[in-house]
């Protein structure tokens, strides 16, 4: 199989940052050979998927306002196919984590990520999501979301410009285009063992009630 180079309109392949990671992934995929027909079908499916990635509305703090600006008229992200933002994680393709994640929000983020269906992607927008950002040495801030969920693209900035966010989304599109869809991405989530003992609730509340 020849080396596949994902093509994005209007930006040549050489001008993108971080091509080495992509080439390493392509080399990994090429080790498991596939036939021409499935390869072409993969290309078609990936073209459809990469041009229609719908994200979850998840914005915790300042980077959320830049996320809203990307959706507004001037830097429209509907031009790329990210037409709507889905409100429920079960209907979303990717989660764009824009903003700081604190200790209190970490279980919520993990639950949202678990509720998303495969194939799913995570984009860390802004310094806070990459590493804790300005609040790195706080007692209540998680230093980077890659401690709890796997991240696909990192977009640095505080906050990143809307064009920088669009550039990050185009990087994600390139990653989607090289994936092996049939038999690849779908089967990679580890399944956790479900315990056999049932969970018993013993502490029913017994206090008095106050009706409003």
């Amino acid at each position, binding site marked *: 199989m020849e080396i596949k180079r994902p093509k994005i309109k209007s930006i040549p392949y050489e001008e993108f940052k971080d091509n080495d990671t992509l080439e390493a992934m392509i080399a990994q995929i090429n080790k498991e050979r596939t036939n021409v027909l499935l390869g072409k079908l993969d290309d078609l499916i990936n073209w459809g998927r990469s041009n229609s990635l719908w994200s979850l509305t998840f*914005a*915790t*703090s300042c980077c959320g306002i830049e996320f809203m*600006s990307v959706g507004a008229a001037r830097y429209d992200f509907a031009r790329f196919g990210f037409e709507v933002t889905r409100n429920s994680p079960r209907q979303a393709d990717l989660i764009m984590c824009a903003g*700081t994640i604190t200790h*209190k929000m970490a279980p919520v983020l993990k639950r949202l990520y678990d509720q998303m269906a495969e194939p799913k992607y995570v984009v860390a927008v802004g310094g806070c999501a990459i590493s804790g950002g300005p609040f790195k040495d706080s007692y209540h801030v998680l230093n980077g979301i890659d401690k709890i969920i796997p991240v696909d693209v990192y977009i640095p900035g505080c906050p990143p410009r809307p064009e920088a966010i669009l550039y990050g989304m185009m990087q994600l599109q390139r990653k989607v285009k090289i994936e092996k869809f049939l038999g690849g991405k779908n089967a990679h989530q580890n399944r956790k063992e479900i315990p056999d003992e049932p969970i018993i609730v013993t502490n029913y509340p017994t206090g008095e009630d106050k009706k409003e």
Partner: protein
Amino acid sequence: MTEMEVKFIELDEFRNAMQRERERGMDFLREIVGMDWGEEGLGAIYILENSNTRENTEIGVRTTEREKPQIPTVSDIWQVAELYEREVFDFFGIEFTGHHDLRRLFLRNDWVGHPLRKDYDASETLNPVRLESEPAEEFQREYDIQDDKEMAKIVEKLKILHYDQFIINIGPQHPATHGVLHFHLALEGEEVRKVDIRCGYIHRGIEKMCESRTYPQILPFCDRLDYLSAHQNRHAVCMCIEKALGLELTDRTQYIRTIMDELQRIDSHLLMYSCMAMDMGAITGFIYGFREREKILDIMEEVTGGRLIQNYYVIGGVQADITANFARKVKEYCNDQKMRIKEYYDLFVNNVIFRNRSIGVGVLTREDAISFGATGGTGRASGWACDVRKRYPYAMYDKVEFKEILHTDGDCYARLLVRLEEILESIHIIEQLIDNIPEGEYKVKTKPIIKLPEGRFSASVEGTRGEFGVFIESHGDKSPYRLKFRPTGLPLIAAAHKIMKRCKIADLITIGASLDYVIPDIDR
């Protein structure tokens, strides 16, 4: 408004003293600052104001008990003290006797320790990142004084939300909560019976971090509190530090700061209008509001280099001078915006559907607004003249003329109208200043290491959502001993349960959008 004289009162006479203050007319409790004075004990400073005569008082109380510190509550005198005292309990562990619901406000309820105490143990093993949700809170925690008046006991007797009602959660991840806020509702049918608001999902511990940073290193945090009034927040902190040091600023700096503040105010009100339109379903309004906002962001980016987090004011002036075509661009923008406001009225505000959904919905009376301390557009829509630019003028506000917009209805429609009319007033202020910016230095020389003299200082400005204040207690070092920001959104959240009584869920969304809070400002 700077150096504060705090009167300390003994613990036994504290409650009577506070009742006397209230009868004297001090009806606005601006903030309760929890303090850990080390050897001298734990305590709090209460900053009160009379809304008619504008007189200020600061009262302090302290106790040397470190294991179980107790102070009588004032939450029946000023309604906002309910949430302020929960915050002080969360950060310092001080128990307020007589408070009827003393739970933690910002941290998880299985958190160990009280972070803002000076002997807090910040190790990772004590409070690791837990991936399970906190145990559900079912009960209010009330503290009663026993007969011997010495010890108070927790009496967990009243449920927060009643079981026969249908309990749902809105948030924390929700498109309509403007950030991460968790509404825990009890419904009966479609009507809301009780709202329990749980915040703290974006609590970043800024106040604790500021205690170990130098004064110039604190300024970048202020931009990120209420990011839509970034300039005003930095203005408050810079003003406080400059007055404490006795620095005189040049006129050019004051003009530039006033113009930038007003541009930021227009930007934030446009965003409030856009988000309110989006929440009610009119996405076209959102797109139009953001289109105008981009023009302001272009102007600000050319001068400051940032669109949202601007990093512009520094101690002694501004970071860089304004560019040559700043004045021309601002004038073009102001002329354009005056025509566009009429479009907003045609499209959204006079629309019959919006009027039916918002007139008479979510009424906040004037007495409640003062008791809750709900300043900003919300307070002015209820008839309370609370604009800091008129009460304690700063920068160039005493030299320009502008009206303070007041409405008396106090419903959601009035709150939106107040903000749209304030955009026109801000344009009026900018037009008076933009052609007369005097020449001069944009920054005054300061020492490389800034140390404030000993004492307590405070300053407030009119942020876009209310009165934003900062309180600094300094012991002469290059970092503050205690720094507290007065959140503009916490009084609005405190008032929410009263405003939202017996409204339907659709009205709850309208009320939330019209109150216009920004969650990182509440949680700091």
